[in-house]
């Protein structure tokens, strides 16, 4: 039936110019992929801070340092600042929680971004979360061919780690983005993925946390036969309960949480009244809980347990000491105890939506800008004197 082939070819002979814009499809799909449930991995963060903060009590554990050096990944991504190596004066440590899963676009987002600010007195650690949806100007990054532009801050890590950028590239672009937006210099940093984080909480045998609001799990439920099952399906942005599956609920109150409970609790965002701000707070609380458990449970005085903890972090953790080394950081932090960790609510805990160049995000309130300036100028104590309600009281 040759004539039919020919006829069909003629029927479809001259197509009009297409309305299909492949670039737009790719860009939209990459954006969509980024915005899927990165929540999950994010919180990972904590571990790094725990390792660094708890490091204060383990100065001199040379064997640990050696172990640490051989299991944890080290990178040199941050610019070195002459004279800063000794870590005198105020220092800032950046903690980045990533979702280790590669999205369909292959991009790795940083869901959790916390700046740990140590004032010049070296007797406190302030935890300042930068909301992942904060709209920022991301500078160009030649190594991955990114030309710069407006985006949410969680894109900075992704854009820096594309291709061969890896964790070093992600860290570098994120640190530079933070420096340009706030003037804050990052002296050291850690990147943790979800697995590394989970391993540490498991090595600690769980943590003691105070649940501060009733939290229904979007991710873990129990079916009629007592088996774990996803309690909700997420189609088209709608969360539909799965019949017969009861979601796990975290009621307010202080208790010991099993590792899976702690990790599930701090990834919840959808069903809590203050959304991502609640989650940022819970993540900070878990960070503090890990540090507390590590310092109080004898882990730090028991070389075998400590060794297990560090090895648990292992490949899931990447650190950059910005020209200093672990012992310098330990020395800097040796007088910071669990009760010296101060958690701060960015934006006072309120959402500030904004749309810049077609990208929905949120902006930092004027007060939050002042907070970042205070971090830069080492005047956080003064800032909190003016904003006492920005301090998270629940531990």
């Amino acid at each position, binding site marked *: 039936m040759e004539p039919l082939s020919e006829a069909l070819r003629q029927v479809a002979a001259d197509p009009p110019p297409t*309305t299909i814009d492949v670039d737009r499809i790719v860009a939209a799909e990459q954006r969509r992929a980024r915005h899927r449930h990165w929540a999950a991995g994010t919180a990972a963060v904590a571990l790094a801070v725990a390792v660094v903060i708890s490091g204060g009590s383990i100065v001199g554990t040379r064997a640990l340092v050696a172990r640490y050096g051989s299991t944890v990944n080290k990178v040199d991504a941050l610019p070195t600042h002459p004279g800063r190596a000794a870590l005198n004066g105020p220092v800032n440590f950046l903690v980045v929680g990533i979702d280790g899963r590669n999205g369909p676009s292959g991009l790795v987002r940083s869901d959790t971004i916390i700046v740990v600010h140590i004032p010049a007195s070296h007797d406190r650690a302030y935890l300042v979360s930068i909301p992942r949806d904060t709209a920022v100007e991301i500078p160009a990054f030649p190594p991955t061919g990114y030309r710069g532009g407006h985006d949410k801050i969680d894109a900075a890590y992704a854009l820096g780690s594309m291709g061969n950028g890896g964790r070093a590239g992600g860290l570098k672009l994120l640190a530079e983005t933070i420096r340009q937006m706030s003037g804050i210099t990052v002296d050291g940093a850690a990147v943790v993925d979800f697995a590394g984080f989970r391993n540490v909480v498991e090595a600690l045998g769980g943590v003691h946390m105070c649940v501060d609001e009733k939290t229904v799990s979007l991710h873990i439920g129990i079916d009629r036969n007592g088996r774990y099952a996803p309690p909700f399906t997420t189609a088209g942005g709608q969360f539909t309960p799965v019949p017969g599956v009861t979601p796990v609920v975290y009621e307010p109150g202080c208790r010991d949480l099993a590792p899976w409970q702690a990790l599930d609790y701090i990834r919840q965002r959808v069903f809590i009244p203050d959304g991502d701000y609640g989650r940022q707070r819970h993540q900070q609380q878990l960070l503090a809980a890990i540090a507390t458990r590590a310092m109080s449970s004898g882990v730090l005085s028991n070389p075998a347990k400590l060794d297990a903890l560090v090895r648990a972090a292992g490949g899931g953790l990447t650190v950059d000491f910005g020209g200093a080394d672990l012992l310098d950081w330990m020395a800097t932090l040796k007088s910071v105890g669990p009760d010296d960790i101060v958690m701060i609510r960015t934006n006072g805990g309120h959402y500030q939506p904004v749309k810049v160049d077609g990208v929905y995000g949120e902006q930092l309130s004027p007060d939050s800008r002042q907070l970042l300036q205070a971090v830069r100028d080492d005047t956080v104590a003064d800032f909190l004197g003016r904003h006492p309600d920005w301090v998270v009281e629940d531990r």
Partner: protein
Amino acid sequence: MDVAGYREYVAVQLDPLRRTAYLLCGDWHTADDLVSTALIKLFRRWKRVSQMENIDAYARRVLFRAWLDERRRPWRRERFTDTMPEPGGTGPVTETSVVDRLALAAYLAELPPRRRAVLVLRYFCDLSVEDTAEVLGCSTGTVKSQTARALDTLRERMLAAVTASPVTSRRH
């Protein structure tokens, strides 16, 4: 994920996919919609798709299903009219002559979706019976019988057009 590879694939296949889509749905705007839908689905699964032996077959299957989905939308459902939408062919038409384009497009549009798809896949995309069966998700026997029936219908319509008055369309 290999975004560059995806772009490369789309650059080469965009035109053939659009033509195939047009033959399925008979309207270039809808064709572009269908191809867009298919491209998005392809992108989301590209990591796996790019490993496939026959990416084209997968792409056509996605396109075919996008079209079936589109047809099920309420505003695409058929409407009844008392006149034929298109006049038939005007000259003497035989199987061996090149059929008037508009007439053929109209006849195609009257075929049920699977029969139309069978013709497009086999005679426009030049697929074998087996490959066509794979795209449509049916047996080779079904492909053959659907092809035969589709061809019969086309033949009938063409002959009817020849015997009908060449100037005015016939009322049914």
